[in-house]
């Protein structure tokens, strides 16, 4: 059996993690290490447990057995606010309160750093300013979120997570519902956040995007990890078939030289 825990340095890891909803086990006995400083992308068919795994890492779901540790400490024992200063999350869906402006929403990312009487320190202001600049929202900061386009709105949520200033950021299908231009926009932003030193973990649907953007790819099927490693090392026609049940050719990406998956055309 392949385990992902062998010989990689990572602050965030799972140990024999089994979890799911009610009686149903979606993830079983899974060992994962998120390599420090990586852009880890989890891929797999629908229902393979990739979102469940990500939600467990964010402590949105409790393990049925096994543990998840951050710096060797079980995250189940960490205070909620303390965890929120280490691990940020971009969920699949968030609700923008009616009439809220961009700057107001991004400011909410500071919540884990604020106390009862310290609600808007100079550092809070700096973090919000930096997050807005980083996501090219400075010009839009006075606008009402409801009036923005889907792509802009996704950038606002990312900006909120950035204002949280966590060394780790988890993204649950950050490109869903976006057109191709905005998908690339979001993924390029992720890459530059990664280059600045953050550890990113994302669930993506598009295998080619995953192969192009990930520095560490985790392929899942039926709640288990089938393969993990650099995309160039692990993406093969056999793996694509094993994970997705799809026959495909894997050729060098003419842009990057990395793997490009081209599904077979029906005869």
């Amino acid at each position, binding site marked *: 059996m392949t385990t992902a825990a062998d010989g990689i340095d990572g602050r965030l890891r799972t140990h024999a993690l089994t979890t799911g*909803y*009610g009686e149903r086990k979606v993830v079983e006995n899974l060992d994962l290490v998120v390599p420090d400083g990586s852009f880890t992308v989890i891929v797999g068919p629908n229902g393979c447990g990739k979102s469940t795994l990500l*939600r467990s890492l*964010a*402590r*949105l779901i409790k393990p049925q057995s096994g543990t998840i540790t951050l710096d060797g400490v079980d995250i189940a024992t960490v205070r*909620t*606010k*303390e*965890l*929120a*200063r280490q*691990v*940020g*999350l971009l*969920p*699949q*869906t*968030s*609700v*923008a*309160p*009616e*009439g*809220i*402006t961009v*700057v*107001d*929403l991004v*400011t*909410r*990312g500071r*919540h*884990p750093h*604020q106390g*009862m*009487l*310290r*609600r*808007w*320190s*100079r550092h*809070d*202001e700096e973090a*919000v*300013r930096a997050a*807005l600049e980083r996501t090219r929202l*400075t010009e839009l*900061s*006075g606008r009402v979120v*409801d009036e923005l386009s889907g792509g802009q709105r996704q950038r606002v949520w990312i900006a909120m*997570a950035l204002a*949280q200033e966590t060394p780790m950021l988890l993204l649950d299908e950050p490109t869903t519902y976006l057109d191709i231009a905005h998908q690339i926009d979001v993924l390029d932003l992720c890459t530059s956040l990664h280059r600045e030193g953050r550890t990113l973990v994302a669930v993506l649907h598009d295998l080619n995007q995953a192969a192009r953007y990930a520095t560490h790819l985790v392929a899942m099927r039926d709640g288990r990890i089938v393969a993990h490693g650099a995309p160039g090392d692990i993406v093969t026609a056999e793996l694509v078939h094993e994970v997705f049940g799809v026959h495909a050719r894997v050729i060098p990406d003419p842009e990057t030289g990395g793997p490009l998956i081209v599904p077979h055309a029906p005869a």
Partner: protein
Amino acid sequence: MTTLQWPRSIRPVRVGGMSMRLELHALLWTVGVALIAVAVGAWSLTVGSAGLGPGDVLDALTGRADPSTTRIVVEWRLPRIVFALLGGAALAIGGCVFQSVTRNPLGSPDIIGFSSGAYTGALLVALFGTGSALGTSIGALAGGLITGIVVYVFAYRRGVTGMRIIVVGIGVSLFLGAFNTWVLTVMRREQALSAASWGAGSLNEIAWVNTVPLLIGIIVTLPILLALQESMRMLEMGDDTGRALGVSAERVRATLLLTGIALVALVTASAGPIAFVALAAPQLAMRATRTAGVRLLPAAAFGALLLVVSDLLARTVIAPAQLPVGVVTLCLGGAYLVWLLATYGKGGRS
């Protein structure tokens, strides 16, 4: 270095290690509306069949009036008007909590069955019990709380969602409404009359013995709610987002619901189910102050104004007879609901 562009007169304020963003617009509205509510209350101390002027009232309050004037002002009118102010605020705060937790402008104790349940409890006490004021209060409390728990349990499926609470609540309150109507038809006539007037929501019988517990209730619960209001705002963006921002969602939500229900229960136990204040006040406050989402203190100010004005109308429209204040709030609320439905969805929550 560019400064952050803050809309709607939000001012950063820093004093020593303390800091906050002052929402000037919301602050001015809240203080202004609260002052108007108190002013209406003060003026309505002079309104009534006894023909007392502002001078008499002032004398009574400072203890210089004759005993009968003092009794009318201090023992009869004052507790009722203070109750209207505090009760309006309490209902509005309760409604604000419900709307925030359910993420829906229709989330209020009226809609989700608490009021019908309280009425059922009071009716059953009247039917089988003594019909004393205390018995009615206890019956109402028990009925309301049991209904709240039943709705919560039926709506629970791996956590609760706002929409499910509302749908289950509407179902339960329709059922209880039918049951209440049936109970009224089988009661003795005088029992039914007194039960029905309680069920309409009335401040006619309010005395200090009702007002003091409400004041204590507010003093106890308000600090809890204010301490949780930032977390409450985070949860409005969804459970996942709230948790990712460091909020213990289930614990915060349970505390919020419990305190919200307690506040509404304190009012209902004494005055009966007063409709629509909880529903309308948070939304009116949100629209007037233009805050993102409902806010506790602006809602409280609007609720106080709404109920004290409604009470004044209830006492004067068909004077010397009095309307139950619930009838007045119901009329105002009906108009409000039509307005809400007409404007809802135009740039509403997505």
